[in-house]
């Protein structure tokens, strides 16, 4: 049974979701099931990670069909580390949702859909088949659409329409790309494609297909010209949902790019330049957008876009150091962005609003919470030794050694603009004195919460901040993982051999 461990990260959330559906009308039990299910997810993620770390890439052929004909599930170091991080964030959010989600929303199936979404994410990370990747993307989109609209406020529906339309279009573009790949090569197995594509004569066609994929994934991850669905929708749902989206959804697009542009279509010079320009513009417009926003959740949404640029930029340089930097950044970003939106949810409870001019005096009223919140905020900027600092070293040095000074300038610009924005938020909401706010009636402020309710809000944040601190002070562990991922991504024969069950002579 344990030889099928590769598939269990998907199954654990599927089974949890089914159990939750049985308890449709009982929010209380649902909360416990969800927490237990997510905890089991962490355990399985950890087991799979340690197995891949010790024994190299694991693969499994669904339905026992031989490799290029069936669907392969491949757990390489990139996939399992993302699964582990996803499950950690999911666990934190399961706890966070117990108070952040009112029972009426839970009765619409919030938890079940939440676990379907995590299942979709795990599936997307694990699959070794392009069409299967598309199917997991659909699972993710449909679940996230439900999560966005649960509650049915007008602003939510408005955001969801934009979100859904653009993601649907990107799916169609992705599907078109898949059809073209299949037409050109007759296979959709990623490992097999990595061998077929380099031998195809028609380089122009392959170039076109790779750009079609880039557009498809780019919309999902929110890169420059097509990002506007993201700030339009991410601030509308409750904080738990926003945190889930912010931490994980855009990263799936980045994951798909990392996979496709290393394994199937290794970046050529033209694509590198295109990706570089787009990464630079993404950082620029995301940063400028964040600068002018007046609502904290919207500021964070724009910061997501800004920081996607770091990962795309790292990929576009296409050296091992740069990819290691991009992956390190992704690890850091998943944890920190989820924390930021959860923290936004707490501030909403404290101030009754997320608009910046309604905030102030956090430091006087809640000194301990302020200290806790300072860590993710400053980690985002990358103040040493916090987690944002380490990936930036790799990215800066990689762009310098590659001679891409423009890219280096953009990286530094984005870091500085993040600093400015965080300083602005810090000044406005933490250190200035309390503006005399009107207390909204019939609104439950953070002060009014019982200890258990406060704990449900703050404990998951402490958990994720703990992970951030671990990352900050033991960055060499993450560096080691990222270096191994970089090695695996750049040398595709490891992946190929794992899928086809070819024993490698020398261990990694």
């Amino acid at each position, binding site marked *: 049974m344990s030889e099928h461990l590769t598939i269990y990260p998907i199954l654990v959330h599927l089974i949890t979701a089914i159990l939750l559906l*049985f308890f449709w009308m009982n929010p209380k039990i649902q909360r416990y099931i969800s927490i237990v299910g997510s905890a089991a997810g962490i355990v399985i993620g950890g087991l799979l990670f340690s197995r891949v770390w010790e024994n190299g890439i694991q693969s499994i*052929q669904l339905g026992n069909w031989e490799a290029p004909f069936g669907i392969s599930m491949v757990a390489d170091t990139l996939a399992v580390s993302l699964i582990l991080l996803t499950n950690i964030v999911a666990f934190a959010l399961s706890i966070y949702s117990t108070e952040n989600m009112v029972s009426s929303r839970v009765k619409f199936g919030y938890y079940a859909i939440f676990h379907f979404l995590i299942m979709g994410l795990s599936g997307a990370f694990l699959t070794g088949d392009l069409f299967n990747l598309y199917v997991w993307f659909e699972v993710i989109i449909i679940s996230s659409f439900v999560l966005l609209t649960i509650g049915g406020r007008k602003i939510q529906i408005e955001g969801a329409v934009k979100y859904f339309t653009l993601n649907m279009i990107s799916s169609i573009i992705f599907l078109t790309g898949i059809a073209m790949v299949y037409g050109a090569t007759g296979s959709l197995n990623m490992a097999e494609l990595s061998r077929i594509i380099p031998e195809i004569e028609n380089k122009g066609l392959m170039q076109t297909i790779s750009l079609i994929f880039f557009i498809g994934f780019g919309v999902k991850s929110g890169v420059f010209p097509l990002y506007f669905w993201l700030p339009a929708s991410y601030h509308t749902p409750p904080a738990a949902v926003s945190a889930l989206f912010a931490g994980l959804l855009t990263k799936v697009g980045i994951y798909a790019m990392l996979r496709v542009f290393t394994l199937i279509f290794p970046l050529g010079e033209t694509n590198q330049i295109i990706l570089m320009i787009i990464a630079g513009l993404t950082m620029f417009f995301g940063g400028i957008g964040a600068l002018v926003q007046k609502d904290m959740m919207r500021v964070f949404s724009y910061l997501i876009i800004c920081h996607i640029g770091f990962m795309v930029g790292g990929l576009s340089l296409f050296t091992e150091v740069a990819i290691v930097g991009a992956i390190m950044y992704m690890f850091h970003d998943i944890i920190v962005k989820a924390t930021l939106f959860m923290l936004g949810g707490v501030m909403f409870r404290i101030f009754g609003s997320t608009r910046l001019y309604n905030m102030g005096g956090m430091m006087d009223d809640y000194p301990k919470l302020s200290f806790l919140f300072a860590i993710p905020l400053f980690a985002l900027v990358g103040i040493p030794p916090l987690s944002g600092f380490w990936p930036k070293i790799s990215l800066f040095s990689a762009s310098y050694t590659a001679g891409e000074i423009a890219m280096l300038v953009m990286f530094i610009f984005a870091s500085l603009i993040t600093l400015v924005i965080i300083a602005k938020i810090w000044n406005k909401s933490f250190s200035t004195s309390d503006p005399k706010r009107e207390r909204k009636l019939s609104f439950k402020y953070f002060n009014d919460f019982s200890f258990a309710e406060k704990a449900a809000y703050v404990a998951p944040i402490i958990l994720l901040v703990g992970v951030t601190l671990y990352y900050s002070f033991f960055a060499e562990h993450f560096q080691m993982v990222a270096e191994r991922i970089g090695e695996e991504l750049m040398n595709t024969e490891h992946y190929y051999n794992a899928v086809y069950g070819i024993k490698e002579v020398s261990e990694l």
Partner: protein
Amino acid sequence: MKSLILHTISITLLPLLILFSVFVLLRGHYLPGGGFIGGLIAAIAFILHAFANGLKETRKVLRIHPGFLIPVGLSIAVLSALAPILMTGDPLMTGLWYDKDIAILGKIGSALFFDTGVYLVVVGVCLTIIFTISESV
């Protein structure tokens, strides 16, 4: 809708359509058909009944809340996918087949149970949606 013709025929059609949906479900392995389309046909049977006799009557015929069919169907599908892991140690979703023929059904295997799960999920989802819409109108 009060119509004597529709009312009379819906009572006859309900069992017929359900029987037909099961037939479509069973032939699905090698021929056109299967759990999805079978589920749709079964859902149509109940929706037609609801048109002719009102939602209350249909709920009485159905006895359980259609939403309950969703997790039941999903569990059957997941168990059939898990069966090879638990029984023979093969990867997820490997087809397991019982060697002997069974009357009417033919050869049965884990694929049939998977399709049955899909059938139930489709019936559950369709009826939940349609019932919710027609209740709110």
